[in-house]
């Protein structure tokens, strides 16, 4: 029957869906055109010297597509705030689900602070350094060092935490406008970076431009100086390095699935979410992948790794700055263009912190709805129509993140990625078993969720691939020293400690509600059989 035979009466709620393109834009924001843009070309080559950057970005993107399907399915199955917690608590176990969500939220809040600390310690300082080098302003080069001091990071970081807080308690419209501007700025910045890189005719032009600003012979001395200070290029086969580095690929794309936490109320949400998350992955892969292809036409991965080593692994040996923004600036040293890129990167980094605040607040809402935390915590200001209390709590976490960024490496982003991955095991395992443990609900779920392949639930199949990807990244973090160097006993103890606190909070809340209010929280999570 080609005809869509359906009679619809005049009733409320029958509206058309948001465009998938818009969901994609939000996903791109969550991935971040700034921080991911910097770490793709600096951290990957530093931590996995010898890994093929383009292949890593591509393999990680493909595996993230599976992860995106799993999270779209989770969001489509239970389209609510904090969907992964809601789904896992109803499918697997509420205590475990809460502890996982709690751990992810605590670390997300803290890492948002760590990202904010990046503004003075990395982004502003590197831009001051670049500007000083390129436009011959030695005072700025010196000032770039001042910016990275603990006190300055704390002061500037605190200011940016406050900026993020105050922007996030604004009514929806200005917040959306702020994000919109960030997206446009981010795209413009990347157009400038590509145009600058493409302005070079080849490696010789890049080398000449580099030496013009960094000093004659500097380019050629990068690899030898790094090697003399312990740099070891390609310690393992390139293929193994590439798959070992997938956790960094995951970190680069981290955030594409965040719209699933609040876009659930959309009509045709499964389709919109899937296209949105896939779209944001593909768009950012195209941007960073194109960047990788262009930059490796101008220089080698070995040189980039050595430059990154001199910056991160052996600072002070010789001036170094392994950021694509700097590479493009030396090729096209135009003050206006460099300034636009700088403003765009700082602005979109704030946008990234804003998306973390947004996402954490949704988890807090979900816990408050389930009465695990006091309702006050999810209060929405009548005047501003925004969750001021939740945002204040997340800001406090972020501020702690700024402080801790100066004293410990436990909350560095790579550790956060590992923590996030571990907490995802609970919802992803829930997705694998859902078609079997909640058969009736699964049968009535949207088509994306209830699809089968040769009679086997797609949700389970994709969930298993996603689970394999997550488990591999956990294993690789320990197995390969590039990441393992960051993961100490303290790191693991911190994770376990926060997780255990989550378990205790859930049980304490359950006890309190039962004793004081006569309500068993456990009933919230129970399936209701029909009469």
């Amino acid at each position, binding site marked *: 029957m080609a005809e869509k035979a*359906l009679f619809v009466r005049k009733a409320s709620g029958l509206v*058309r869906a948001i465009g998938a393109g818009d969901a994609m834009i939000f996903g791109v924001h969550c991935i971040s055109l700034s921080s991911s843009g910097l770490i793709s070309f600096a951290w990957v080559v530093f931590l996995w010297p010898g890994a093929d950057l383009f292949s890593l970005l591509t393999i990680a993107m493909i595996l993230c597509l599976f992860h995106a399907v799993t999270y779209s399915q989770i969001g489509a199955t239970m389209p609510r705030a904090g969907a992964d917690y809601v789904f896992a608590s109803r499918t697997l176990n509420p205590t475990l689900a809460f502890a996982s969500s709690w751990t992810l939220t605590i670390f997300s809040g803290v890492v948002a602070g760590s990202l904010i600390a990046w503004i003075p310690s990395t982004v502003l300082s590197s831009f001051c350094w670049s500007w000083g080098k390129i436009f011959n302003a030695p005072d700025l080069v010196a000032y770039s060092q001042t910016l990275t001091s603990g006190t300055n990071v704390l002061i500037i970081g605190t200011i940016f935490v406050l900026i993020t807080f105050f922007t996030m308690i604004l009514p929806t419209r200005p*917040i959306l406008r702020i994000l919109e501007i960030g997206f446009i700025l981010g795209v413009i910045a990347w157009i400038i970076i590509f145009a600058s890189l493409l302005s070079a005719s080849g490696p010789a032009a890049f080398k000449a431009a580099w030496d013009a600003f960094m000093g004659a012979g500097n380019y050629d001395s990068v690899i030898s100086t790094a090697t003399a200070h312990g740099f070891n290029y390609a310690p393992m086969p390139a293929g193994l390095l590439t798959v070992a580095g997938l956790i960094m690929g995951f970190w680069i794309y981290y955030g594409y699935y965040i719209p699933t936490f609040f876009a659930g*109320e959309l009509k*045709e949400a499964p389709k919109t979410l899937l296209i949105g998350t896939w779209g944001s992955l593909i768009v950012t892969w195209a941007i960073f992948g194109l960047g990788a292809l262009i930059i490796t036409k101008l220089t080698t991965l070995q040189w980039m790794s050595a430059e990154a080593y001199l910056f991160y692994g052996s600072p002070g040996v010789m001036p170094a700055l392994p950021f694509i923004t700097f590479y493009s600036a030396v090729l096209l040293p135009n003050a206006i263009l460099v300034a636009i890129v700088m403003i765009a990167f700082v602005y979109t980094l704030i946008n990234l912190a804003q998306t973390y605040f947004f996402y954490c607040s949704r988890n807090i809402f979900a816990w408050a*709805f389930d009465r695990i935390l006091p309702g006050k915590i999810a209060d929405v200001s009548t005047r501003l129509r925004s969750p001021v209390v939740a945002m204040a709590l997340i800001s406090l976490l972020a501020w702690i993140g700024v402080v801790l960024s100066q004293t410990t490496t436990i909350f560095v982003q790579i550790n956060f990625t590992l923590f996030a991955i571990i907490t995802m095991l609970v919802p992803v395992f829930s997705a694998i078993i859902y078609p079997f443990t909640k058969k009736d609900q699964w049968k*009535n779920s949207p088509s994306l969720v209830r699809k089968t392949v040769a009679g086997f639930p797609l949700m389970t199949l994709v969930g298993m691939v996603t689970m394999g990807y997550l488990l591999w990244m956990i294993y690789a973090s320990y197995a390969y020293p590039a990441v393992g160097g960051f993961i100490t006993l303290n790191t693991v103890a911190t994770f376990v400690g926060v997780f255990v606190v989550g378990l205790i909070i859930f049980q304490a809340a359950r006890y309190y509600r039962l004793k004081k209010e*006569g309500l068993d929280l456990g009933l919230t999570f129970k399936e209701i059989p029909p*009469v």
Partner: protein
Amino acid sequence: MTRILHASDFHGSDIVYRKFLSSAKIHKADVVIIGGDITGKAMVPVIEQPDGSREAYFFATNHVARTKEELDELLKQISHIGFYAYPTNRREYEELKGDPKKLDALFAKTMVERVTQWVKLAEEHLKGTGTKFFMMAGNDDIYDVDEAINSSDYVVNIEGKVVQIDDYHEMINTGHTNMTPWECPRDLPEEKLGEIIENMASQVKDMNRCVFNLHCPPYNTKLDQAPKLDENMTYVHKGGQIEMVPVGSTAVRNAIEKHQPMLGLHGHIHEARGFDRIGRTLLINGGSEYAEGICRAAIVNMDKDKIKGYLFISG
């Protein structure tokens, strides 16, 4: 202590209603309240094909039933998502398509039939258990359904009435809402809605212990945030995100601000599940996920002079 189980916006979903009845038993509710929007929004013609199979189109997918078992399963699936399955043939389908009056009459008939079935189910499962059963229509429900609710000697149609929940608490009730973009059967201008509420409030003996069971949530709270629509009924979005706006009733808000009842029970905005406060009044919207077959409801434990606790359930 009195335990209330409140839910609304089932929109014809048979499975959600059955789960709701079940949860009344599981949670040992003293009072069960259905707060409106009980009827479905669409009818699915299940059309007989020349080869004897039946075809139905819903949720952007064409469904085919070739055997009796498949047909039963299809009809069940349609009722679970809140739609009305209508087994028919091509000729009648074309006739209905061209005759809006006949289609309206058929819609009304099927809606009343399902509400009648639901009332009977409630009697079957809860009558004699000591649980009070209150039901009212919402803004999406045609007036014909009132008769189906009134036909019961157990289920009480509470629309426009002040009812006694227990020895201490009274409750005022209406499924009318302020005007929506769809101009539904029970949409009213704010002034008119305000009059209905005031008329009931004036009959309440002790407002401190009163419950306002009003389908429409008060304006500008957590319970009334809905996507903004443009003139083409399309979501307005900014920066890749939907723009949310308050769509609740100012008349409801004014009444709650003025009378400060103990509790406000609301529905209407499915996605705005949550709780809020206006002064001393606790406001609750259990939300709705009827199309997914998920029952959402709120349990409220009431002591004589205060709300002891509340909890959202879903499943």
